[in-house]
């Protein structure tokens, strides 16, 4: 199958974030970057599908400034065949602008399957996948936890709150990858060497008008420091008293 995977560069979430002096971004000093978690799963999904069902091609696409080439190279070193950078000065917050540029690139690619992460680690919007599907007029299943493909048809499970559904659709289609799908493999040394020679094409991103813009970024208010009520079962009466009289939840 010819599979495209859209990947976003994102920082490691374990960090203690600081806001940059502009008030409009996180301070990038000292941040470590990787593929957005679910985008890593999506790359893995594509590689496994093509390994099992081969022959095929896995193309990874990322929109952003030149630093995203790092993540594109990583996906190549995992085993993707080629990469496309849709170059822009920065990554817009407007998901529809991103979707427009991705759709323009994907339009004539002849892909059987287009994979996205369910949501990016930084924006956490979960919008770019279904928006791109709509712009391409393709069937779309979001937040998929299992995916089986046979004879040009896909069966996927989607987790809903407290329930799940199994959906079926024909390819070509767009799928956004959630928890449950395979975790990203670590690139092998051989993979890293091979990636250096794989094609990485750079094109200008066709973003169009941006109607969602960032006003400011701030850290959420800290939760007031709590207290240790006590140790072991002996602390239970005091806890229950506090829940009753102070927190008023009992």
């Amino acid at each position, binding site marked *: 199958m010819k599979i495209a995977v859209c990947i976003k560069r994102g920082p490691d*979430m*374990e960090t203690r*974030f600081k*806001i940059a002096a502009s008030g409009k971004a*996180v301070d990038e000093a000292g941040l470590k970057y990787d593929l957005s978690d679910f985008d890593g799963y999506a790359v893995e999904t594509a590689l496994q599908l093509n390994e099992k069902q081969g022959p095929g091609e896995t193309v990874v696409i990322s929109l952003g400034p030149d630093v995203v080439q790092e993540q594109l190279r990583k996906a190549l070193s995992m085993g993707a065949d080629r990469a496309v950078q849709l170059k822009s000065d920065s990554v817009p917050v407007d*998901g*529809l602008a991103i979707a427009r540029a991705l759709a323009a690139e994907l339009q004539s690619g002849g892909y059987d399957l287009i994979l996205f992460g369910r949501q990016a*680690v930084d*924006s*956490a*919007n*979960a*919008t770019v*996948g*279904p928006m*791109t599907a*709509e712009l391409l007029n393709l*069937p779309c*299943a*979001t*937040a998929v936890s299992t995916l089986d493909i046979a004879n040009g048809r896909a069966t996927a499970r*989607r987790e*809903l*709150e*407290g*329930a*799940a*559904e*199994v*959906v*079926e*659709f024909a390819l070509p289609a767009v799928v956004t990858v*959630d*928890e*449950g799908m395979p975790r990203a493999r670590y690139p092998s040394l051989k993979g890293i060497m091979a990636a250096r020679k794989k094609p990485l094409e750079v094109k200008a991103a066709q973003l169009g008008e941006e*109607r*969602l*813009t*960032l*006003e*400011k*970024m*701030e*850290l*959420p208010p800290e*939760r007031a420091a*709590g207290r*240790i*009520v*006590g*140790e*072991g*079962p002996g*602390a*239970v009466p005091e*806890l229950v008293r506090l*829940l009753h009289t102070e*927190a008023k*939840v*009992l």
Partner: protein
Amino acid sequence: MANTFAMAESRGGALRRVALEAVSAARALADASGGGEVHALLAGAPGIASLAPELGKYGADVVIVVEHAGLANANSEVLAATAAVRIRSGGYRAAVFSSSAQGRDLAPRVAAKLGVAMAADVTSFELAGDALVVRHPAYAGKVIATLRLTGTPAILTLRPGARAAVESAKAARVESAQPAIDPASSRVVVKEMIAGGSAKLDIGDAPVIVSGGRGLKSAENFKLVEDLAAAFGNAAVGATRAVTDDGWRPHSDQIGQTGRQVSPDLYVACGISGAIQHIAGMRNSRTIVAINKDKDAPIFKVADYGIVGDVLEVLPVLTAAVKQARSQG
């Protein structure tokens, strides 16, 4: 003055709580823009119209009812097309969806069809002249972004529980409408609906959540978590990803960045370390209690009350004490 659109989400012929939150938020937006009407779209199998008065109670002036045998399960292709047609012709200032599994699937498609601005997972909003300004937790909830949506209609999905539904009774007029495309022609077909434990309170709705982590040691020991939830009477059981990965609890119980985001009145974290991905899903709980044998566990940094101890010993005692407290009213 401008009208506002709301998507009223239902499942299995019943309204979801997020439907009332969406209608109530749309009411607030309409009022803020000088008193326009709220038009709520309610779609489902025949009979769904009976839910319209409930939407009126929360501020809907008009309920657009779309009844079709093919809509017993939510179908995003059909719902997106139907909502888009209505929103395009309705001249709305804004359209409110829910940041639920269903709403997250639906709203971006509508925004793309209409080519308008959309903000996801919004916790608060205000009108600012021609624009809509919203707050959106990003970076696993570690950063709050304030975003501006330019142009109308502005589309947003509202984080469940971020804004309580408030009653604001209107005698909702009912209009019936047809699906914009035939459900039978949908390219994505729901083959099976796997209902969660129906008797159980959903973790999105429960005022109290008792949540367990790897500190419980085994699937069997979750009985202790269930017992405490039962003692509260209005509690649901949640879990960490470590636990759902191990198959001790179903994936649907997972709370956190990649699970559900919850904001109950009380969250009891039992044997949970407090990884950032878990905290991203529960930090907005009103009161947080943590029980952990490690006094340095990060969960104590977000907890209001902590007990340092063995959860297997503390839970039975706590369950008994909660039972007793509740029986005393």
